[in-house]
């Protein structure tokens, strides 16, 4: 059994670590690139969102490399994501790949579903081996996110633009290669130190922009044309509302224990949106309300034709809590110059707003 799975940001690193420890034959498709996108777009129905197209591209590339069992997220009661595995399986079969799709449910009984699936993939490895493997994967994911949080801060104020990003890329590689907890911790501390020591403009107080929206386009820089780095180049500090390690921790483990990190966000959204609309729509509205006072602006990332985010996008202007919001719809037609122009205008707007507040 040779396993393949789609990319979503750095999700491959924890999975790779876990699979390695369990002796699962994991075939990693190339990280998202133009070919992935073209393949995905070519074989997808046109009205689908970019996560479908990119993940389909990943699955095709994994199948080309010889993967015969493909993992894909599924489940019920979420947006159309739950239907993707079914359709992608049909597309792969129609293309002549003899693959089996395994759905990883993210809606109900997800904790045990995840454990069961890993047990099955690892050829019935003992639990004493599975649990530490999952833990190690999570530790890697944690380390990645901690470094990224530092990078988000430094990127805005570094003197030589791009230094933090270069270090981040090195750190990702080093974490990917770390074999045990000791090396992992060392790598993490090492890089956090290095990034903190980058020469900075001491004077400026950067604008702070919250980044909210749909999980895939938030976590996959290829799909949003790396909007966070571009904002960093413009001297803006980004605060993403969602990190992979936190999301996994809550949605797979803590939610089953009745803890809900989103309760606060949902409560904030309540006056404007009373119920879950699938995906991350409810959270997008809630985060706008919550962060209206904290941040200078909000970037709302959504895939084109995303159903929950369209609802959110329609509701957001009606909230009393006011904050500039720039909605960026991500699809295969999006081009960098267009996005940059919009970002520059948005940053100008936030600067004027801040100056006006100061003068008062």
């Amino acid at each position, binding site marked *: 059994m040779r396993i393949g799975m789609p990319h979503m940001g750095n999700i491959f690193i924890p999975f790779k670590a876990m699979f390695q420890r369990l002796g699962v034959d994991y075939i990693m498709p190339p990280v998202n690139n133009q070919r992935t996108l073209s393949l995905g777009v070519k074989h997808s129905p046109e009205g689908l969102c970019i996560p479908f197209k990119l993940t389909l591209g990943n699955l095709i590339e994994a199948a080309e490399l010889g993967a015969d069992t493909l993992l894909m997220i599924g489940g019920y009661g979420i*947006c*159309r994501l739950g239907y993707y595995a079914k359709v992608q399986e049909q597309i792969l079969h129609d293309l002549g790949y003899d693959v089996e799709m395994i759905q990883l449910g993210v809606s109900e009984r997800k904790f045990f579903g995840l454990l069961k699936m890993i047990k099955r993939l690892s050829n019935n490895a003992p639990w004493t081996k599975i649990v530490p493997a999952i833990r190690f994967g999570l530790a890697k994911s944690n380390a990645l996110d901690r470094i990224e949080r530092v990078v988000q801060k430094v990127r805005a104020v570094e003197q030589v633009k791009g230094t933090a990003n270069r270090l981040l890329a090195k750190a990702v590689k080093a974490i990917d290669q770390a074999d045990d907890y000791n090396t992992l911790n060392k790598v993490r501390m090492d890089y956090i130190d290095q990034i903190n020591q980058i020469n900075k403009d001491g004077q400026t107080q950067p604008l702070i922009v919250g980044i909210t929206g749909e999980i895939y386009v938030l976590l996959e820089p290829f799909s949003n044309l790396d909007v966070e780095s571009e904002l960093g180049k413009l001297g803006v500090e980004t605060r993403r509302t969602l990190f992979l390690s936190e999301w996994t921790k809550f949605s797979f483990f803590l939610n089953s224990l009745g803890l809900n990190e989103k309760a606060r966000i949902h409560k904030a959204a309540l006056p404007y949106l*009373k*119920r*879950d609309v699938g995906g991350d729509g409810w959270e997008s509205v809630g985060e706008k309300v919550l962060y209206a006072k904290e941040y200078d602006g909000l970037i709302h990332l959504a895939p084109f*034709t995303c159903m929950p985010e369209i609802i959110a996008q*329609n509701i957001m202007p*009606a909230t009393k809590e006011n904050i500039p919001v720039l909605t960026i719809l991500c699809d295969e037609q999006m081009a960098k110059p267009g996005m940059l122009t919009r970002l520059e205008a948005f940053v100008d707007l936030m600067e004027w707003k801040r100056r006006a507040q100061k003068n008062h």
Partner: protein
Amino acid sequence: MIRIGIPRALLYYQYYPMWKTFFQELGAEVVLSSPTTQTMLSSGASRVVADTCLPVKVFCGHVLSLVKECDYIFIPAIRSVQRRVYNCAKFLGLPDMTKAVIPESPPILDIDIDVNKGKRVLYQAIYKLGRHFTWDPLKVRRASIAAWQAHLNYRELMSSHSLTPPQAIEKMLGSSEVEPKTHSSHSTSTQGTIAIIGHPYLLYDEHINHRLIHRLEQAGNKVLTPEMLTTEELESAIVKLVGRAYWTYEEEVVGAGGHYLESRIGGVIGIMAFGCGPDSLMMDVVRRQAARLNTTPFMSLTLEEHTAEAGVVTRLEAFLDMIYRRKRKQVEVCV
């Protein structure tokens, strides 16, 4: 008397007799918006962001036309009407979205329908809706039983008499309720039999589909719709194609499509709205099945507010020509 506005869009086609009975039993007057017009569509589209799907734009247009006509607008949030089968996000967010984009609208009566939460929650939700009119739980109970009966009659009427929803509503509630419907002439020499699949709010809204059924009938075709199939037929087709229904209204597309593709008819036309999340996937499943079977011609028409009549007509004519030619060829081979 309290006037309840019901927009003639989206779920109107599935549930109108039920809703009307419920509110009338509780002593309210029901105001229905008139059939879709271009003005309605444009005014609705101007309120929401551009990539909102066509049916929701139409819906907003209907709500806008009702703003001054009623005291409340009824917009249910239907999450699930079958266990572990869920509805499109747009239906869930509809009450809140309408409130946000049409701030001048009268108060919105919403009700959460989710059968996964159990009967008690459902009954409580119905009672909560009824409380706007009466304190008497028994009266609400009577009204909901009458409403449910009306719904069953409506479904029965459609499947046993092969009626489309507008025809069935007309028959049940009197002709004043319905848009002028051209009855099929049932000419003896039918050119072919064409099935159209898709959601009722696209198939029977003559403005947005440019009177597709009428055009097909005028060209001498017998038109089949998803409502003419029994639940068993629809379900078995879904099982065959995707295993298990995922969407609440999957049978109208995958079920009907899967069934008609194998029932030796002239052709199948799938109608979907641009930007419709569920349809973009479901229509693809049907299209793939059509390509695999390679026996029945299939065409999918995507509707949006820019869809021009001429474009629809041209594609329809080309599709029909192909079917007629195919039929002639088959006849020649037989001779």
